């Protein structure tokens, strides 16, 4: 039973879901405004690297997180420029930036840390110990000792949900993603709204990256995000473009991931469980989600469409 819902599996689920959730939240913000940003993978990767880099150089955790977020925002800004101002193909731009991010971080990592590995002395994101849960059976182990970023993610989910559906700027952002011309004729600045959304998505994905490097791993390694940005986009679809849904989807993916670890070596009816197959579950779920098999999800009507205002 423990391998299915034990504290260890649940804690791993949360750990594995967090970076995916952050990327998914970034996806929700940008796609709700009508811009597809697959460069979230790259934003995450530069976040992971520059977090470690700044932590190494400054020794300060706040500076490290700030540097990571700024790196994610800068990469997203390039995408915004291409997609919004120059109305370039959003998939091509996003993919190019992913390749750029991979090359850049691998190169810098090689130049700076190839001999020693990333330093082990860098400040890491602390865990939050919930002492009062110490003796609670499953819960204590699952959430009693999680990274501060996990809790921050939870807060972001709530705030983002409120922002999108309960505030005026949120209403405007959604209108821009659904019907930019209507928003434009009502005096809402479509381009500016989309810029903000894309930049915010870069920041969120970068936070996911910093979680991987400065909370889970304590170091940087090449391509350490390993497609989590893309899984995040699947979680966004699975979660029907809402922050709460995206979090739920990320947890499902995280659980699938966690199982493929915990079921390693477990025998069912005398046969060893095929973990290799199990580890494909998150990806299988992703394909199903993207293909629209899981519920009827409707994407923002103007998602991925460049907008050109009419004034001549």
């Amino acid at each position, binding site marked *: 039973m423990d391998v299915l819902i034990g504290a260890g599996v649940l804690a791993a689920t949360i750990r594995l879901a967090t970076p995916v959730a952050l990327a998914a939240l970034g996806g929700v913000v940008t796609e709700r405004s009508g811009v597809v940003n697959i460069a979230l993978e790259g934003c995450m990767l530069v976040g992971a690297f520059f977090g470690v880099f700044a932590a190494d150089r400054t020794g300060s955790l706040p500076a490290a997180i700030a540097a990571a977020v700024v790196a994610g925002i800068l990469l997203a800004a390039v995408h915004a420029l291409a997609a919004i101002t120059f109305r370039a193909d959003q998939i091509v731009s996003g993919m190019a930036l992913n390749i750029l991010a991979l090359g850049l971080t691998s190169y810098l990592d090689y130049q700076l840390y190839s001999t020693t590995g990333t330093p082990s002395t860098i400040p890491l994101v602390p865990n939050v110990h919930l002492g009062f849960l110490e003796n609670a059976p499953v819960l204590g182990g699952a959430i009693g000792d999680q990274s501060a970023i996990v809790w921050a993610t939870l807060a972001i989910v709530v705030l983002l949900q409120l922002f999108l*559906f*309960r*505030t*005026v*700027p*949120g*209403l*405007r952002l*959604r*209108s821009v993603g*659904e*019907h930019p*011309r*209507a*928003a*434009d*004729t*009502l*005096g*809402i600045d479509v381009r500016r709204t989309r810029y903000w959304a894309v930049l915010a998505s870069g920041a969120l994905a970068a936070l996911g990256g910093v979680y991987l490097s400065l909370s889970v791993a304590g170091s940087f390694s090449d391509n350490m995000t390993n497609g989590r940005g893309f899984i995040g986009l699947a979680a966004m679809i699975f979660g029907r473009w809402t922050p709460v849904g995206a979090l739920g989807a990320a947890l499902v993916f995280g659980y699938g991931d966690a199982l493929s670890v915990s079921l390693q070596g477990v025998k069912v009816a005398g046969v060893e469980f095929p973990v290799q197959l199990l580890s494909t579950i998150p990806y299988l779920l992703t394909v199903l989600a993207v293909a629209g098999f899981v519920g009827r999800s409707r994407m923002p*009507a103007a998602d991925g469409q460049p907008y050109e205002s*009419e*004034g*001549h």
Partner: protein
Amino acid sequence: MALETPIVEMRGISKRFGELQALADVDLTVHRGDIHALVGENGAGKTTLMNILYGLYRADAGTTRIRGNEARIAGPRDAIHLGIGMIHQHFMLVPPLTVAENVVLGDERGGPLLDRRGIEARVSELEARFGIRADPSAKIEDVPFGVQQRVEILKVLYRGSEILIFDEPTAVLTPQEVDDLFQIVRTLRGEGKTVILITHKLREVMAVSDHVTVLREGRNAAQLVTTRTTPAQIAVAMVGRELREIAARSGTPGDVVLEVSGLTAPSDRGGPALKGIDLGVRAGEIVGLAGVGGNGQSELAQCILGLRDASAGVIRVGGVDVAHDDPHRTRRRGVAYVPEDRRVEGLVLPFSVAENFILGKQDRAPYARRGILRADAIRREGARLATEFDVRPADPDIEVGSLSGGNQQKVVLGRELSESPKLIVANQPTRGLDIAATEYVHERLLDQRSRGCAILLISSELDEIRDLSDRIAVMFEGRILAVLPASEATEDRLGLLMAGHVEAVGERSGTSPA
């Protein structure tokens, strides 16, 4: 009245789009508290002129005065500021948002938090003042066109507009909704608002307007006072010639070509769209299918074409069951289709006129040989059809998307009618078309009828149905309530049936299929 400063005064407005002179030295004078009709054929420049007034386009030349003061309107924001509001031809509403959210969007007032209740209360208040009914908490995607349009009106009223521009507001409305709209427009006039109304329907011009400005090919053709003019006079100014009377119907229908019995089919949302349809159309006969949009007419057309799967029932064309055929096979049996929305279903807008003419036949000689398209054959046929169907300009290489609505429709007709079909299913064939283009489409359909073609004509225009049909079937909530001979289909009777009042069928005619 002559002494009062006009609320809108546009002088010498010109606008070019590339090679095309869309407006040349156009004047428009509108008085406060008037309903001013702006009429003209497709492409005459009506929308362009209004887009300039609303700041969406900038004029190349000319001046605009609002309440006597020269105005520089660089964008919608300036226009809104001057009290100008536009109800667009294609609605500018955000479907997943509510009525109230759409009304206040961009001017929500109050703090950054979205005060749903406050917003809905404000919208209700506005509705009460102008006699407009729409549930503020309903989502736009769930309400019919008529209500969506009221939301557009509320939007501009909410922003304090004094001058309301309506661009073809009645094109997508049912007769009842048109009546409601004109009631609202009159209330607006009563409240001192000024209304500029673009329409193709002379009946509407005569019914509600005070003044009329006629444009033809981007120039002023006439400025008239409604009470001192006639529809014929306006038509002459619009078209530059007298209109023809529709030829009287004659001839006896032949064999049954289309036979539908017990047809049921689901709608896109899952519920039943068709609940047991029985209908027959004979050779040389036009059967009009009247009804308020959304009562299953389009689904019936789609079933006949094979675009939608029936859940039960039989569809026979010339005796052959086509219920399970795909559109390609159905078409090969001689069924032509004029779809409801030419821009979405009827044409590939970025393709040339010639390419659109041969869509669906591109795999056959002479347009293709061994799988390779033959550009010269396609162009030759395109040029021939463009001339035959009076597409203007008659250039086979021009992009279809750049043609006016009427000329786009001629391309659809040219493709569908050129192969001597046995059956034509025409869904709203004249929607959005000007009177000359409408006349043209009607003549082509009547030609086909005389040739012995069976025609199922779906339209929400009662006049069109009554002018063309030999028999009229009225659809309501997925059923055919009655089939009347044209001679017995008075407007009142049709109106009642369209609203679901079966007792209006009368004793003489039943619901016999053929």
